[in-house]
Structures are given as C-alpha cells and as structure tokens.
C-alpha cells in the first residue's frame, strides 16, 4: 500500500496527539481545574458564604447591568455596520473596516485612559460635565462607555464575512416581490445571519463581563459601588483573600465555559447544515 499522507505513521501520530493533549492539559485544563479547586479549598460552606457576601452580590449586579447595556448597543451597531459594508460600495469603506479593528489592537489600559482624558474632571468635556453635576468617570456610566468601546467589533466581525459570502441576491428577490425594507430584513436577512449574530453576541457578552484593564482605569474601585466582578476578584486577591477571589472567579469561569459550549454547538449546527 502506498503512503498517501505524511505524519500517518502510528508512532508519530501517537506522539503528536500525546503532545497536544499534554500541552492543552498544562496550559488550559489544569488552570481551569485550579480555579474551582482553590474556590472550594475551604469547603462548600465557605464557598457559599463568599458567594453571598454583599460586595460580591453588588459586583455581580453591576457586571450584569454593564453587559445588559453594552451588548444590545453593540448588537444594533454591528448589524448596521455589517449591512453597510457588505451591501454597498462607497468611498471610505475600507477605512471603516480598519477603524473597527482598533479596539482589538489597542491595549485596554490605553482605551480606559482615552475615556478618562476626555470625560474625567480634567478633560475638556469633563469640566463641562462637572459644571452640570454629571459624573461619568469613576462611576458606572464610565464603565459602560469603555466596555462599549472594547466590545464594539465583536458582532460586526462575526457578521461581515458571512454576509459577504452570502451576497445580496435573496434580499433583492424579496424586494422585487414587493417586500418592504423591514420585511426583507426580518424574513430574509435575519434568518440567514442568526447563528453568527448569536455567536457575536455571546463573544461580546463574555468580553463585556470579563473586561479588566479598561474598566480598572475608569472605575475608581469603590467597593460596593463601582466594582465589577473582575475588579472584585482583583480586590480580594490583593487582600490576600485567595478563597474569596477564586470564588468570584468561578462565576466568570462558568460563564467562559458556557460561552465555549454555545460556540461549539453553533459550529456543530453550521457543519450539519453545510452537509
């Protein structure tokens, strides 16, 4: 029998698969297990006490609020931007597509600083806001604003390649059959993009909940006021409350695992429908 592919010798195959398992184990699985092991190291009772601590509960609430405001905003923006750059040719289209990548490339700390400079009490918009008794920085609106910045590419980035690949012929057909713009979007576009849209939302949500660098610049870390869950994790860790820090971390880890499950499911469905 003639050899058809390289790397199919049983010993090599076993070696490479073994190495991959070893690396994934060391780099990903063990850290994941360690989070839960640390959180539960003082027993289940302490775990519950830590979880129902009033500052922890407040951090959970604030984090949910941030995600609830950020994700819909970026969902709407993502759909409009994707529609714009995939359905129309116009000057500046490429620049627009490069601009949207900026939040991926910029360090989150720089992002936070930009907002602080603009809206903080020393900033040129900030002093006007101060005169009108509006405080955005070191308060929850600032956290929402930087999170919108950090997560704004996610939905658009998922939609653009898909919508480009699909083309616009189905939408044009709907219009020529007399559908209104809204009907066309709801009946044709939305069903075609719903998986990618959902995946973009899940990714944006994971990032919105977990953002640390940008949020820590504008939050002011006031316990029970402007502490999101990741900042709460940091605060507890700095207080040498390891078990407490890891208890809050488990919530974020569970969310990360759920994100991976949804992603795997959506990819599996996509493969099924492709067959």
């Amino acid at each position, binding site marked *: 029998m003639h050899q058809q592919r390289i790397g199919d010798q049983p010993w090599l195959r076993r070696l490479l698969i073994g190495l991959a398992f070893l690396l994934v184990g060391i780099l990903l699985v063990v850290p994941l297990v360690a989070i839960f092991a640390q959180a539960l190291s003082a027993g289940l009772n302490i775990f519950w006490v830590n979880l129902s601590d009033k500052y922890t509960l407040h951090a959970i609430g604030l984090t949910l609020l941030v995600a609830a405001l950020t994700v819909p905003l970026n969902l709407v923006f993502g759909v409009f931007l994707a529609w714009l750059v995939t359905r129309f040719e116009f000057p500046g289209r490429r620049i627009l597509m490069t601009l949207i990548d900026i939040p991926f*490339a910029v360090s989150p700390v720089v992002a936070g600083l930009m907002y602080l400079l603009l809206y903080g009490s020393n900033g040129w918009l900030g002093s006007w806001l101060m005169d009108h008794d509006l405080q955005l920085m070191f308060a929850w609106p600032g956290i929402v604003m930087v999170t919108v910045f950090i997560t704004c590419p996610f939905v658009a980035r998922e939609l653009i390649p898909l919508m480009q690949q699909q083309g616009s012929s189905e939408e044009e057909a709907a219009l020529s059959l007399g559908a209104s713009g809204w009907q066309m979007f709801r009946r044709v576009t939305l069903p075609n993009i719903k998986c990618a849209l959902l995946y973009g939302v899940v990714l944006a949500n994971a990032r919105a909940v977990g953002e640390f660098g940008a949020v820590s610049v504008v939050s002011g870390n006031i316990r029970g006021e402007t502490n999101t869950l990741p900042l709460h994790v940091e605060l507890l860790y700095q207080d040498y409350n390891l078990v407490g820090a890891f208890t809050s971390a488990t919530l974020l*880890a569970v969310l990360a695992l759920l994100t991976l499950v949804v992603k795997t499911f959506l990819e599996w469905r996509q493969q099924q429908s492709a067959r």
Partner: protein
Amino acid sequence: MTPANQLSKSFTYKSLISKSFKVTGRQVLPGFALSLGISLLFISLVLLLPLSGLLIQTAGMSWADYWAVVTDPRVMASYQVTLLMALGASLLNGLVGLLVAWVLVRYTFPGKRLIDALVDLPFALPTAVAGITLATLFSASGWYGQGLAKLGIQVAYTPLGILIAMLFTSLPFVVRNVQPVMEDLNSGDEEAALSLSAKDWTVFRRVIFPAIWPALVMGVVLSFIRSLGEFGAVIFIAGNMPYLSEVTSLMIFVRLQEFDYAAASAIASVILMASLLLLFAVNVWQTRYLKRLKGN
C-alpha cells in the same frame, strides 16, 4: 470562529465574492443612508472622539517633555521587557499552535472536539481570572511552582511569568489562523510528492509549509499585538518590580496613580502608535498576499 480567524476569513471571502458584487445591482437595497448615519455616529462617538482626546492631551506637551517621559529609564526598561516577552510568547505560540492545529486537522481521536473547544478558553476567560490562576499555579507553593522550584526555576514574579501570561492569553490566535488553511490544503500535491518517494520531512518542508506559512505568520503577529497590550493577566504574575518586570501598560497605570495625566498619555501614545502601525502593516501585507494568490 474567533475574531482572529474572522479577520483572515473576511479577506478570503471578499476576494471570492467581489465579482458577483459588481454584477448584481446594489442600488435597489434599502438602508444605505440609515446604516451609514448610525455607523458614522457610533464610530465618531465611541472611537474617534476619545482618540482625539488622547491626541489633544499629547499635543499639549512640549517635544522635550514628551521625549523625557517616553525615554525615562524605567519606561525604557518596560518597553524592553514587554517586547522581549511578547516576542518569546508569540514565537512559542507559533510552535504550540502549529502542533495543535496539525493534530486537530489531520487526525481523528477521542477527545478531539473537546480540545477544539478548549482552545478558545483564553478568549472566553476574563484576563483577571487567568492572571490570579496562573500566579497561584506558579507561586512557590503552587502546583507548578513547587516542581519548578526543585529545578531552580522561578516563574512567578519574574519576566518569565509575564511570558507565561502572554502565552496563555494569545494561545488561540495561531491555531485559529492555521487550522482553516490546513483544512483547505490540496492533498494531491502531497500524494504526488510521496509517490515520487520524497521523505515525510521533505514533503512537509516543500509542500505543506509553503502553503501555511502566511497563516502562521498572521497568527504569530496577532498574538504579538495582543501580548504587547496585555494587562489583566500579566500584572498578577509579574510581581511588577520597577526596571525588571513592569510591562508598558502598567507604566500608564503607575503614572495615572501619580496623577501625572500628561506622562500617562505620552506613554499611551507610544503604545497606540506601535499597535496601530502593526495592525495596519498586517492588513496591507495580507491583502497583498491574497492578491498574489488570486493572480496565480
């Protein structure tokens, strides 16, 4: 389906559909004005206005002040450690990512789907959680730290810790860039080379590697960009000792805590320019590379 592979996919798809795009009429589709208006408003308010805030703040400094801040010895030390560790982490990622992508594409084995799903964990897990977890694992009493201490290696609170944190947070980039390209490889070339009794290693070097290296480079560069800006995962494990293990993002933070906004924005402008230049270079390079592919 990570942002990274979407980035590369969007270019591929674009070249595929660009023909049909011009044939079908685009003028019939509604919503141009509305979507342009909303997109521009959003981008101006969320991206451009804050960017201009940074530029204005930096422009207010004299050149001598600016230069003094960005070449301060402590800041220079932070550039050095950030660049070196990001370089090390992204190159290591190239190796690890190539191996994992190869195994996921070429072999079937139990647990494959699990590994495939877990690869994205670093993108889904908040960086602060990754940071405290790695710091705890590699501390002197941690699961990894204990063993490494016997070998005389200290990872936590040294530059090596920074490298580990960067390696973790940028792990998916190479896998997700290389994987789709490897899946699309034409198996005919490989068979032909083998039927001419070429050695496995030669086939890999001459047939497979030339096809995947652009994706590999793309993955390594993206993980380098990500590592340069990484903050959350790094600060917990780095120990943050001045001149030794402070990353540049942290220097911005340090200056902010001293209420030196001008210095913070000067350092930020350096990071911003470096990452925008890299991003731009990657985009141009990739577009040109794909054009060449289409030409063949």
